[in-house]
């Protein structure tokens, strides 16, 4: 495998509803910042790849309009995934493995505020037997949380503890959206939103964007003092039918992690940025990843405190890489998810030096 690293990362502070700026206007300064920090010329990228969903924008080919933020002239080599930007990064990483180009720009954006996110996400379900019943994203997450509670995998107290810690971490992150402190007692006494989920178990709705620059080999070493090298990256998917899955566990995460090099023999990661929009999902993921007590989980505050859908997963990779680039840690894990109830999962292991 060719050595490829994250050399820069930028994100917009997410907001509940940006009623002033459109997607391009949100994205443009983020892309510009990531490019400038990378030290690579705007017109020197070998590949550009983005992740977004036209269902969020409510118009077809919205992702093409987003190219206005990039400066796609002379014509660029570009691709798009109708998925979280973490999968755009995966495509860019694969593209860099071809060996004929040395850098790639990856970006993701989403304005969930334009429509009703809970309903929009329903459209990713089986159109014959599930979607016509309109179970929304929170309903399904609640079903998953219930499965985990009933299986004895975690408790409501464990879930609340995730929310409390996330808020505490978010307070130190200017790019988090929910930054007010939360006590365990307050969390547990809250009324259920969709039982067993309470408000603190669910993510905020966010508008936002993120961008990452990947560079290979010598170019990465030249433009970045401490590149965050991608030592392993893999993604796995589970069946679309919710009934066919064990919702209380995440075998796709466990398998992706193994293929990404997160094994018992490998040195432990210091940080794990997990894409867990619901509190119980972090517990399922920690279990699947067999993370030890010493691992700092989602020190950014995670998806539970800022959730710009389609960018949230890419932000996990960016947050993990940032800590390697700034010298805080030497080995980090980033995880991204897609689909209902952690259906598809991507694991990326990043390392210094």
């Amino acid at each position: 495998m060719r050595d490829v690293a994250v050399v820069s990362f930028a994100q917009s502070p997410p907001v509940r509803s940006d009623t002033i700026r459109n997607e391009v206007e949100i994205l443009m300064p983020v892309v510009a910042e990531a490019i400038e920090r990378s030290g690579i010329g705007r017109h020197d990228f070998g590949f550009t790849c983005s992740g977004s969903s036209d269902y969020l924008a409510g118009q077809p080919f919205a992702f093409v309009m987003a190219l206005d933020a990039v400066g796609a002239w002379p014509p660029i080599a570009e691709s798009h995934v109708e998925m979280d930007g973490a999968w755009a990064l995966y495509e860019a990483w694969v593209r860099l493995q071809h060996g004929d180009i040395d850098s790639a720009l990856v970006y993701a954006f989403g304005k969930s505020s334009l429509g009703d996110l809970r309903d929009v996400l329903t459209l990713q379900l089986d159109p014959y037997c599930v979607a016509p019943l309109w179970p929304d994203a929170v309903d399904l997450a609640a079903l998953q949380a219930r499965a985990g509670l009933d299986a004895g995998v975690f408790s409501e107290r464990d879930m609340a503890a995730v929310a409390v810690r996330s808020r505490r971490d978010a307070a130190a992150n200017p790019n988090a959206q929910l930054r007010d402190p939360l006590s365990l007692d307050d969390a547990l006494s809250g009324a259920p939103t969709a039982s067993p989920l309470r408000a603190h178990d669910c993510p905020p709705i966010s508008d936002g964007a993120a961008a990452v620059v990947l560079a290979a080999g010598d170019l990465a070493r030249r433009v970045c003092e401490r590149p965050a090298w991608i030592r392993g990256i893999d993604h796995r998917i589970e069946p679309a039918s919710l009934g066919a899955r064990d919702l209380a566990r995440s075998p796709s995460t466990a398998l992706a992690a193994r293929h990404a090099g997160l094994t018992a023999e490998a040195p432990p990661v210091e940080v794990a940025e997990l894409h867990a929009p619901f509190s119980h999902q972090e517990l399922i993921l920690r279990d699947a990843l067999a993370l030890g007590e010493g691992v700092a989980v989602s020190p950014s505050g995670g998806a539970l405190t800022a959730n710009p859908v389609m960018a949230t997963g890419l932000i996990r990779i960016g947050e993990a890489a940032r800590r390697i680039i700034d010298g805080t840690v030497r080995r980090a894990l980033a995880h991204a998810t897609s689909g209902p109830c952690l259906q598809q999962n991507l694991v990326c292991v990043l390392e210094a030096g």
Partner: protein
Amino acid sequence: MTELVYGIKTPIRLDYIYVAGQASSRFLTAIAEGRIVGQRCPQCAKVYVPPRGSCPTCGVATGEEVPVADTGIVTTFCIVNIPFAGQAVRVPYVSASILLDGAGIPLFHLVQDIEAHDVRMGMRVRAVWLPPEERTPSMNSIRHFRPTGEPDAPYDAYREHL
């Protein structure tokens, strides 16, 4: 044998409230006031009308607002002869790319008050606005463009915009 299901109805309705963005908002506000504004790229100096807030060529923000005339040149056009549902104008009519004076890219609009077969490349045209009280933040505030009667612009004046 069980009958195959060939179709089911599963009504879907999603409502969206779009955000035009800063650049489009300023453009549409000006249109409601009977003015046309563009934005200039700080790098390549091209004036975008309507502005989208960025230069898609350079990938930078286009902050500087530039007034643009409501007169210009027909760079190219087509004559629409086929009626379709929801058509606002009677066929045949002319859809045109119009390079406004002071603009760096042509915009799309109708050319009327002239026989369709008399429209030509290089023709000078002017916007026909709705009366001020009927104008809204919409391109429909310009009813169409009509010939000014000035001599045609030379080909070199618009060849780069074809």
